[in-house]
């Protein structure tokens, strides 16, 4: 049983954070809002890009998620800018 989550950063945020993915330990569970708080606490680009009012989206297990969405060990959480495809 995994006790980690996988973070995926895409497009501009991948470049800003200097990583395409990382693994984060997670004991118990958290929420999207809780995870974002943890990441912002790192300061630097994380604090800037994930600040309230910045345009970004979160997907949990490849489904777009709101701030209350529960996150448990084993989940894949992606953070990315608004999409611009097609």
């Amino acid at each position, binding site marked *: 049983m995994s006790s980690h989550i996988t973070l995926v950063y895409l497009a501009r945020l991948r470049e800003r954070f200097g990583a395409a993915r990382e693994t984060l330990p997670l004991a118990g569970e958290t929420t999207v809002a809780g995870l974002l708080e943890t990441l912002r606490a790192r300061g630097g680009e994380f604090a800037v890009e994930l600040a309230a009012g910045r345009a970004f989206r979160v997907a949990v297990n*490849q*489904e777009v998620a709101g701030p209350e969405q529960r996150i448990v060990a084993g989940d894949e959480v992606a953070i990315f800018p608004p999409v*611009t495809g097609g």
Partner: protein
Amino acid sequence: MAVRVQTADFDVGAELAALRSGNPAVGAVASFIGCVRDMNEGDRVGGMFLEHYPGMTERELEKIAAEAKARWDIFDTLIIHRVGELKPLDQIVLVAVTSAHRGEALAACEFIMDYLKTRAPFWKRESTPEGERWVDARVSDDAAAARWDAGAAR
């Protein structure tokens, strides 16, 4: 309800022929091709890189196709989206819908494109004379997709 995400180009004529092949109930084939332009927001664009979120992309496109199928009386849909390096004049996306009648096919095709632009995880990075830049989301794309949510009459 085929969905394909690929770096390779696609043959529009062959894809449309295959989509309707063998189904003599098809009276209408609506399609849309998106192409790379050499200008955007007033700047010359020499090329672009299209990034996506593998796995989620396919899931979102399949959901969009299923929604179109649920909303309109259509037979089949095809969504092909390219990723990777692209240059002006290249084809980016093909959306095609078959139906007995044109109104359903055209509406479903437009619906799929509007949702694809706002929901599918693709990001464009353009090369301009000033360097590389990520394209910002267009407010008009959100507005186009929101039309459908509001159940706007056509």
